[in-house]
């Protein structure tokens, strides 16, 4: 009896601690969202209150949408992220297939070479990357960003995908070979569909740092036409520091896509992590 009560208190304390930390995690986001929909006075007088009928005001959003080129920024971020992920997945899966399927001289060496990028951040090469982009005339283009993010994403993609491709049965591939499929069709038609779950995991892991990156857009593509959402909101907020309505609205607009994506992909993401994809 006493033991049962003991474990009940313990569970209670665990819940208390977890709720406490969950509140700390969510509170800042919540605070931003509710205040972005209030008028200026209410923001300052009563920051903790949810917008009521009297204090509800969308002036911040109208300022943001009227002033900044947020539609362009979103489009840029979207293009860069989607194209980079597609290239990372395609190139990464091809290399992973070559490394896990065939035995050839230099296999091990190539694997190690591609693994360097998991630990060494690409950012350290910025000086020379900028030089190269200037030389090839790619500065202030989205291509520059796509190239950098593709190179950045390939190492982890190869690592995770080759682990998964080792689990695809040899019999299946050999049956394909006997039926006269070329190595390319074996890869595209047999292996790729089977590693789709792993590809989704890689996609999610690759997506977050690309969407949120500030360093490379700031250095490689700071022009008005190529700004990403992250850089755009950084600059916008910098200019509107004193207009709290606009700042809070801009922050909320930047949070929303991440929230939506998170709710779509969170199961995939968590399953990916807990299944040991990143061990």
């Amino acid at each position, binding site marked *: 009896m006493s033991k049962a009560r003991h474990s009940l208190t313990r569970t209670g304390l665990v819940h208390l601690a977890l709720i406490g930390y969950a509140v700390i995690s969510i509170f800042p986001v919540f605070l931003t969202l509710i205040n972005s929909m209030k008028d200026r006075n209410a923001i300052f007088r009563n*920051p903790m209150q949810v917008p009521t009928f009297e204090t509800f005001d969308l002036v911040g959003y109208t300022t943001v949408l009227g002033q900044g080129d947020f539609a362009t920024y979103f489009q840029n971020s979207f293009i860069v992220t989607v194209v980079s992920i597609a*290239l990372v997945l395609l*190139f990464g899966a*091809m*290399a992973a297939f070559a490394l896990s399927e065939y035995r050839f001289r230099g296999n091990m060496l190539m694997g190690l070479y591609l693994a360097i990028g998991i630990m060494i*951040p690409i950012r350290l090469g910025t000086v020379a990357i900028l030089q190269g982009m200037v030389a090839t005339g790619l500065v202030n283009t989205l291509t520059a960003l796509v190239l950098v993010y593709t190179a950045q994403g390939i190492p982890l993609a190869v690592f995770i995908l080759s682990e998964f491709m080792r689990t695809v049965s040899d019999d299946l591939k050999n049956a394909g070979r006997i039926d006269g499929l070329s190595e390319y069709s074996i890869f595209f038609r047999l292996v790729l569909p089977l590693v789709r779950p792993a590809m989704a995991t890689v996609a999610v892991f690759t997506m977050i740092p690309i969407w949120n990156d500030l360093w490379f857009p700031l250095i490689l593509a700071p022009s008005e036409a190529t700004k990403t959402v992250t850089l755009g909101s950084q600059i916008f907020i910098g200019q509107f520091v004193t207009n709290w309505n606009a700042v809070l609205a801009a922050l909320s607009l*930047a949070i929303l896509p991440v929230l939506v994506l998170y709710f779509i992909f*969170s199961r995939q993401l968590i399953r990916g992590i*807990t299944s*040991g994809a990143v061990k």
Partner: protein
Amino acid sequence: MTDIPSSHDATGLIKRPKRWHIGVFLLPAFIVYSAVMILPLIETLRLSLFNTVDGQSTFVGLGNFKVLFGDERWSEDFWNALKNNVIFFIIHMLVQNPIGVALAAMLSIQKLRFAAFYRTAIFLPTLLSFVIVGFIWKLILSPIWGVSPYLMDLVGLKSFFSPWLGKPNSALIAVSLISVWQYVGIPMMLIYAALLNIPEEVIEAAECDGVTGWSQFWKIKLPLILPAIGIISILTFVGNFNAFDLVYTVQGALAGPDGATDILGTLLYRTFFGFQLQLGDRSMGATIATVMFLIILAGVSLYLFVIQRRIRRYQF
């Protein structure tokens, strides 16, 4: 690197056709990765040995490093940034990783209700961009808005409030804790995964021997998740010595107040790009990047060749 390896049969008598497809599969990844990542990295390391003398790029050996470590124009900034970066890392190790382990330990309790909700909520900040995180916390900690004083008043601590981000001796701690807030989800998830991978039988055996609760965590689970703790430590190390974005969004490129939050990433940005009156300097930028590279390389090697080999792994 072998792009298109020619393969001979072991006997050497029967010659197999060249397997071009291996090259085709490897080539795109190899080219992009080499051209955009590895070659620029090598070029950056090379540039750190050159400097502009009389408008000409000249080989100066380790001259740039001598300037960075010893010259009074540079060394003060550099050692300050390095010291701050070390403090930044220590705070992460002492606060972020223990909290992450504790949260994971609580989440992995069997039949815990709402576990999925807690997991989702705690992982959320990790997905937000630095811009969002930086500005939200700037607003919350701002004395003008008064959210933090109000909250501290609720628990009777109002007198302890001060504008932490604006004071030189508390700014670095405040920024580090913001970063901890953002990233605690990563150690939590990795440790959580490691805890889930511990087989039932081990836990049941421990329970049969009367090892439960706290002592079960310390004596059974913790040794089993040590490899995962090693991984989160090295990830934290690499991430921290490469950090830039959060300091830039919270404190700007000057990493104020008075350089109190300057870390290697922001120093690299200012040096390479120039800021306000300071002109950009490519060679010194490359030199700082090289120092960061060497620090990260040292950390990763220490982990791979010393720590990882000492940690006992248990096979089930």
